[in-house]
């Protein structure tokens, strides 16, 4: 199975390549990609250099243009696609049908991957994208069990890529406007979720309160480590209880299921984290690569090391495990 690694900066890109990534994914420094965070992403020139470096090392580069085109401003996305193709991207990762249609028509030779943001969660949906736009690979939503993935694999005409490590969306990706409800900025339209520009921390008595826009997302008593107020990972009051209503502040780790994923027909494993620093990327990628290259009975210490790198060090296998639902 291929290892697909994130890069939010040219430095992280180099680290990922050096650590043994089979492919690195990244995006331009604008609203065309779903990690449109300040200080992240690539200029055209930076991408040119990154792709050249990757090619010398035999690593592929995937360019994510995975937000939805803003009506009337489609040229920004079309230009992004044109430049990525011209710079030699090995694949474009797309979510918007309009953009997929454009790329399929203009650059029929270009490899097209379906972004997780497209929410193609079943064989009918995936084959539709294969037939309509010649999609070569689908990044599956984090809403499926491994059994679902195996069944889908038997019924589709393209490759499957799945997230195995890093941040975890609780909601079907690409179909969530919780962030824009609270902040006016959404993953689909602006490439951001729970953006830092709308985050505030304040002291209230002995507690630290985290807010997103006008809404309280969490309150931390003295001594409890405060997390970032990602909306769906907050604590809320529901009926008579309060707690993590949607998901605890955990991150995804299904590296323990490598053999099951391989048997399900998964072609590529994806690491989330374009917002992460180069040291994290280097460490995670090299450890995962080593785990992939080890026989199953030798993996345990490597996977234990990985777990220490997770957000809050708490992990979940998410929807891959049926009881999560």
């Amino acid at each position: 199975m291929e290892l697909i690694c994130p890069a939010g900066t040219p430095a992280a890109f180099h680290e990922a390549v050096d650590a043994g990534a089979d492919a690195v994914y990244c995006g331009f420094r604008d609203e065309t990609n779903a990690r449109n965070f300040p200080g992240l992403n690539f200029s055209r020139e930076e991408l040119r250099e990154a792709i050249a470096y990757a090619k010398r090392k035999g690593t592929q580069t995937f360019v994510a243009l995975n937000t939805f085109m803003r009506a009337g401003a489609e040229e920004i996305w079309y230009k992004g696609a044109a430049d990525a193709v011209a710079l030699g991207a090995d694949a474009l990762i797309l979510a918007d049908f309009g953009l997929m249609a454009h790329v399929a028509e203009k650059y029929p030779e270009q490899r097209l991957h379906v972004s997780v943001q497209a929410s193609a969660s079943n064989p009918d949906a995936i084959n539709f994208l294969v037939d309509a736009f010649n999609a070569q690979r689908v990044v599956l939503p984090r809403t499926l069990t491994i059994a679902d993935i195996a069944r889908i694999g038997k019924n589709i005409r393209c490759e499957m890529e799945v997230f195995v490590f890093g941040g975890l969306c609780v909601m079907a990706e690409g179909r969530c406007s919780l962030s824009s409800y609270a902040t006016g900025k959404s993953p689909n339209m602006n490439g951001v979720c729970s953006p830092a520009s709308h985050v505030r921390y304040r002291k209230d008595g002995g507690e630290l309160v985290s807010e997103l826009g006008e809404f309280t997302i969490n309150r931390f008593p003295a001594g409890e480590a405060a997390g970032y107020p990602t909306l769906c990972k907050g604590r809320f009051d529901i009926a008579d209880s309060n707690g993590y209503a949607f998901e605890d502040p955990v991150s995804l780790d299904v590296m323990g299921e490598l053999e099951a994923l391989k048997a399900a027909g998964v072609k590529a494993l994806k690491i989330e984290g374009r917002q992460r620093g180069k040291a994290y990327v280097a460490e995670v990628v090299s450890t995962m690569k080593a785990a992939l290259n080890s026989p199953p009975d030798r993996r345990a210490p490597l996977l234990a090391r990985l777990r220490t790198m997770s957000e809050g060090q708490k992990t979940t296998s998410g929807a891959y495990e049926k009881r999560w639902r």
Partner: protein
Amino acid sequence: MTDMKKTSLTLGPVYYLWNAEKWRDFHFRIADEAPVDRVVIGETVCSKRQHFIEPHLAEVVERLESAGKTVILSTLALVTLNRESKQIREMAEVSEHLMEANDLSALAILKDKPHTIGPLVNVYNAPTARLLASRGATRICLPPELPFSSVKEITAELPDIDFEVFAFGRMPLAISARCAHARSKGKIKDNCQFVCGEDPDGLPVRTLDRQSFLALNGVQTVSHACQSLLGELDHLVEAGVRSFRLSPQDCDMVAVAKLHRAVLDGAVDADAGVAKLRQLYAAAPLANGFHHAKEGAVWVARTRSLQAAWPA
């Protein structure tokens, strides 16, 4: 004003799990009394709930059609299981009714068959709308998140497609494989005992500072605030929007439909209409922030009254 009168109203599918008799009687009353042109029916949120309304489906369709309403069959918003795909495929094969796509799988199955697009499909721009129309979509309800600037662009680009906007109802904000509703009551999805049926208008999610924020509806999360574009109908019609979707809440939806019709017909002034709507659905504040490219939770007052305060 003539343009306003040519518009139509669509009643969206009931997103919540209502008791089957309540669901039937609700639609009977819509058939008899509500000035809506079309009604979308069928389970949209969770396939586990589907069997509840099945015994009443035929009589509801008949009653609505006898009253001259167009009936559209809804499809699931998130399809992951085999039986869910199969159900949509079978419905497409046997049904003589128009169907509404809410997920990519339905788009695939309905290709070349006239169908409508629900507000849960990501249509953010004209090229996407054009593509869907080329595959048989005859009416597209744009996502609630879409700002007016985008609505205008899309309708101007594609004047031959019937566009609809989500004009009333709590906004469908997210859907998950996991059921937060069941979890909040100590269950999981596979053993949920249909606890979502206890909350016919959603289960309130408040912040730890007791701010009303969201509501749970099974695997779906909706807004606490109720979207209302009653004050923006004139601009939307001027921009070429042809119909308005009213998404059922647990309130007098006949009165809500009559009010929207009255405002569209010019019989009730928009400001008076908004005031009346606040009484008809007092359970939640109104919001129109998405339309104005702001936070979806906020309410932006009509600019017209502001303009009126300035000399012409």
